[in-house]
């Protein structure tokens, strides 16, 4: 684990977001060091996924600040005020933050190889031959070397999610965000995805994982967070979090998911 005096790789301060009159995030502070894995638990609608989307710059926060390697992202300073960046400028910053979705969101018109390549060739402007080589290597790493030419419709959910992880990884993200990566999978396919994520964690990838997989959080996370009602209500190392949860709400939640 990283030494705590180090700069956090990703940090958010007082993040707030409402949809209409419905506040989803009411002020969230969060940070993660290089190489850490943070598991985020909490009931649906508690704001976990919203926090990920805001950190991935896929939506704009109503209030709050996001820092990637101590550089404030998502906004530009204009005459002393911070205004949201243009979609184009935002795109540039997003490339450094990887995102894996609950429903995979692979591009159905591209085969596995091209799904993995397309970010490199269009965003990073990597040469096609080189991108192809990297994509093949990454597919091998997630255990899909022999499925490179299969289209998403020809892959199982678990395989699709592994391709989606490879697609995010080739961009060399500074942090990888997972939004319930196994929730849409058949139970027997969950293991293969968690295995890939666990090996990434071992290799030192910085990861924020919104999940309902308590065992995964217990085994892999450096820290576990509990979300409820738009706040982070508890945050501690897995032994403490699962062994001796401080918050009543956490205890109740864990009794349901165990």
């Amino acid at each position, binding site marked *: 684990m990283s030494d705590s005096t180090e700069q956090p790789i990703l940090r958010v301060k007082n993040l707030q977001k409402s949809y209409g009159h419905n506040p989803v995030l009411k002020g969230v502070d969060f940070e993660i060091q290089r190489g850490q894995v943070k598991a985020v638990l909490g009931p649906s609608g508690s704001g976990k996924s919203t926090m990920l989307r805001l950190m991935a710059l896929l939506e704009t926060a109503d209030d709050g600040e996001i820092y990637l390697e101590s550089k404030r992202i998502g906004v530009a300073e204009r005459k002393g005020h911070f205004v949201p960046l243009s979609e184009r400028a935002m795109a540039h910053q997003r490339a450094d933050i990887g*995102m894996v979705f609950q429903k995979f969101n692979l591009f159905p*018109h591209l085969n596995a190889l091209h799904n993995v390549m397309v970010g490199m060739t*269009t965003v990073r402007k990597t040469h096609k031959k080189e991108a192809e080589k990297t994509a093949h290597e990454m597919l091998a790493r997630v255990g899909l070397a022999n499925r490179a030419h299969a289209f998403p*419709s020809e892959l199982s959910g678990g395989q699709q999610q592994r391709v989606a992880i490879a697609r*995010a990884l080739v961009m060399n993200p500074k942090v990888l965000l997972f939004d319930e990566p196994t929730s849409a999978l058949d139970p027997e396919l969950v293991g293969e995805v968690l295995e890939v994520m666990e090996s990434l964690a071992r290799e030192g990838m910085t990861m924020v994982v919104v999940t309902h997989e308590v065992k995964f959080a217990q085994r892999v996370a450096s820290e576990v967070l509990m979300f409820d009602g738009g706040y982070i209500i508890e945050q501690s190392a897995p032994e403490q979090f699962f062994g001796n949860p401080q918050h009543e709400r956490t205890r109740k939640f864990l009794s349901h998911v165990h």
Partner: protein
Amino acid sequence: MQFDPAIFWQQLFSLEYVQGAGIALGLAALSQVLAILIGFAVAVGRISRKKTARAVSGSYVWFFRAIPTLLVLLIVWNAGPQLIPALTESWYTPFLAALIALSVVEGAYMAEILRSALLSVDEGQPLAARALGMTPSQVMVKVIIPQATRIAIPPTGNEFIGLVKYTSLASVISLRELLTTAQVGVSVTFRYAEYYAAAIIYYLVIVSVLMVLQSYFERKFRWTTKAAKVVRTRPGKEEVIL
């Protein structure tokens, strides 16, 4: 029965009919291409967040779907030169007038087809593309358009076939497409059956070719390994997919 096969065969292979068919197909194809471009711009306007873009593009669709195509054709050919003096010059041909008229009308119909195709793309798709760091135009070109195309192919094939037949309207502005060719022949020889039959054959051939073309494109957009193998084995182009 007074059907003279000799006249029929002679006309079928005559230069006039071949040229007429070429003009009909060429006019339909060019109009279709322009209509797709117009339709795409209008469709993007229709789903835009900007009120004025929605209003302008909505009015376009409303107007050109309301006016009969024949009337638009007559306006472009007859009223055009009256209003715009430059159009009285010799470069302003019936072909050009028909191309403009058919494109703007068809553009309104294509706009609706493309709008529904664009809206059919799952919202998770642009989300994933943006997460990779793609700019709005990259998201459109790399992710949304390919997926919308698949949805748009069958109705566009329909429209294209319709356009081939709409080119016959241009006979009223003396464009020598298939129907004009037949009419001119008939007016001299009064061999209606033979001349019309020759025109029918050409329309059948053209539409058959278009149907084959459509199924080729549908196959190409099926997004399976098998389909990829069929369409990607052009020599020297892409690698043969396993």
